[in-house]
């Protein structure tokens, strides 16, 4: 999960790049240093071989003198050096074991330099250089000179170790710093995400906040805000359109209905005509119901967030509604149970909240087979008043859960109900207008449970409302 964020991915990829580059750098450094030390030492040995030959050429016949000259000049034991002069297999001079004891001069093998007349090679801790020389008589001598390689080895190992340890530490620091820097650079994005998450059409004028750090991010925020403007425009256009359309339908509906009623209530009509007119009138009633529902919906949407609220007891309202609807349940032999418990005072519009209860209970009765049960509960949870309407009905398949609250959506498309699939859409829009919500839990074949949540009335709001109530009560009393 964490590897899916831009920050982590970015840090991860540049760390990977650092590892590759660091690895290459490390390998190159270690190898070239090794090569360099060996080359330098070989060159030194070559020079020394020449020097040895120069000072020893005249004394080759006198081993005592030869040893004296070389020891005085090169002191091989003290300097960890190896010097050997031979002709063929006959050794004319050989240095003694050095003080450090890195190598044993007696075991150093005889290696013929071959055609190149000189050759450097590594034998254990000894870098050995052999070179052939000829004296005036044309006799061939070989000067073997060597130097302990232990020190060079130690330096190489030190370098490698410090690089192997240092690079990962460096990498870790770079990753950490990069992550922190990226997070800081992305702070405006976090702020925007938080704001965008809370955006709803309840508060259509809310926009993303601009935190001016990174011009591209600011540009993104501005672009998103312009998109919200356009969406708002389109949304209110659609909403207004459905309200206007429904509105315009009312007058023609009145005329059609009126004409039919006059025909139907006039002189006796032939059976088929009477039947046809009755059918049309019934459909007209349904059509009027849909028009009313659409207008209710768009009015609720325009009220989102500015609904006028009075204190309403959800528990008492539920009991009252159930008493009025009990006969509907009795007809189907469904046990409709009343909520028990204390009063749940929320802020709301009584008629609208009752409509929510009526729609939910009516649905529950409709979709529960005879002999089932519908139970209504009310209570308080997380500062919200809630009502649940649970039935033992046919349930709603999970595929439909998101869409049951959509306009004109029906789980069973062939049902000829008056509501035309607007009942739950109205429930949802009323809940939203109250700053609440409605949700569904359902198991097919076992039943459904709708839960409505409405914010509780706050103590401060109560007083304000009492005053507002008194004001509206006088203005409506003319009705």
């Amino acid at each position, binding site marked *: 999960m964490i590897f899916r964020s831009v920050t982590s991915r970015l840090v991860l990829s540049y760390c990977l790049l650092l590892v590759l580059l660091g690895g290459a750098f490390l390998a190159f450094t270690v190898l070239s240093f090794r090569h360099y030390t060996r080359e330098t030492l070989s060159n030194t040995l070559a020079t020394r071989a020449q020097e040895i030959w120069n000072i020893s050429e005249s004394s080759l016949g006198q081993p005592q003198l030869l040893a004296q000259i070389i020891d005085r000049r090169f002191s091989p034991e003290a300097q960890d050096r190896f010097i050997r002069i031979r002709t063929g297999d006959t050794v004319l001079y050989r240095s003694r074991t050095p003080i450090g004891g890195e190598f044993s001069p007696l075991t150093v093998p005889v290696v013929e330099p071959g055609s190149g007349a000189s050759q450097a090679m590594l034998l254990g801790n000894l870098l050995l250089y052999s070179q052939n020389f000829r004296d005036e008589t044309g006799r061939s001598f070989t000067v073997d000179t060597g130097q302990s390689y232990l020190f060079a080895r130690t330096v190489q190992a030190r370098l490698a170790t410090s690089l192997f340890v240092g690079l990962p530490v460096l990498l870790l620091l770079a990753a950490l710093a990069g992550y922190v820097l990226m997070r800081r650079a992305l702070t405006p994005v976090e702020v925007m995400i938080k704001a965008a998450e809370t955006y709803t059409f309840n508060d259509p004028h809310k926009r993303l906040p601009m935190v001016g750090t990174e011009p591209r991010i600011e540009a993104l925020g501005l672009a998103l805000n312009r998109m919200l403007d356009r969406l708002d425009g389109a949304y209110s256009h659609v909403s207004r359109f459905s309200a206007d359309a429904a*509105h*315009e339908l*009312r*007058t023609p*509906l*009145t*005329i059609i*209905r*009126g*004409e*039919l*009623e*006059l025909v*139907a*209530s006039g002189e006796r009509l032939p059976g088929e005509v*009477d*039947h046809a*007119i*009755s*059918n*049309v*009138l*019934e459909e*007209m*009633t349904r059509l*009027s*119901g849909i*028009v*009313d*529902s659409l*207008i209710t919906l768009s*009015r609720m949407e325009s009220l989102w967030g500015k609904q006028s609220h009075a204190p309403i007891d959800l528990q008492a309202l539920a009991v009252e*509604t159930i008493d*009025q*609807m009990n*006969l*509907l349940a009795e*007809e189907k032999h469904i046990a409709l149970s009343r909520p028990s418990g204390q009063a749940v005072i929320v802020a709301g519009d009584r*008629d609208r909240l*009752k*409509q929510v*209860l*009526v*729609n939910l209970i*009516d649905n529950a009765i409709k979709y529960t087979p005879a002999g089932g049960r519908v139970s209504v509960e009310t209570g308080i949870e997380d500062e919200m008043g809630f009502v649940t309407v649970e039935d033992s009905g046919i349930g709603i398949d999970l595929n439909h859960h998101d869409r049951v609250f959509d306009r004109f959506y029906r789980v069973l498309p062939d049902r000829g109900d*008056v*509501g035309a699939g607007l*009942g739950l859409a109205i429930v949802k829009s009323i809940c939203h207008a109250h700053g609440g919500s409605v949700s569904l839990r359902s198991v097919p074949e076992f039943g459904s449970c709708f839960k409505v949540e409405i914010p509780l009335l706050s103590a401060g709001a109560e007083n304000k409302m009492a005053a507002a109530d008194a004001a509206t009560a006088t*203005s*409506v009393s*003319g*009705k």
Partner: protein
Amino acid sequence: MRILIVEDEKKLIDILQRSLRSEGYMVDGVNTAADGLDYIKTYHYDLIILDLQLPDGTGTSLLKRVREMGHTMPALILTARSDLDSKVENFQAGADDYVIKPVAMAELSIRVQALLRRGPALQENVLKAGTLEINRLTRQVRRDGKRIELSPKEYSLLEYLFLHSGRVLSRSMIVEKIWDQSFEGLTNIVDVYIGHLRRKIDEGFEPKMIRTVRGLGYTLDTEQVK
């Protein structure tokens, strides 16, 4: 009784005229606010029916003018606007009733009748039709002398049907009267209650009094039992 209708839709005026004339009213219809004002200045009307959206102004401003001129006849607003603000505004302007389209003609004529206070004077405490007897003080109902137990809702429904006997009451009228607005669109509740009422009032008795008029609603037939 003379009624004026101010409504921009000619066809609607035609239907309203035919419907109200069949009830015995004299009905004039005009399409504009200006014509409406002229007619009101010229003739005496017992009731005016106003649409809110007129080609040359609103029904509300026309109503205000009429009230300013001192006319006190009842005014009924017939409109497609169903918002509370519009209702409040018009009642404040002097409207006496507010009806939202589409409306059943039966409902409109009942409302007109109520505004004109011309309905049968049903102030008696005991309503009688044939063998059906309703005591409005004790809320007791008898048929053929037998006491019938009704729930409060069933009683209200029967009384409402009786007070408008002979007229067809639509389901939405009944819902609005006996329940409340929240039950709009839930008209099968009416069918259920009518079913129960029928079982108590009509089952085992002759003739049957509660009649279903398909597509329109229900009516209590008191004529045939007299």
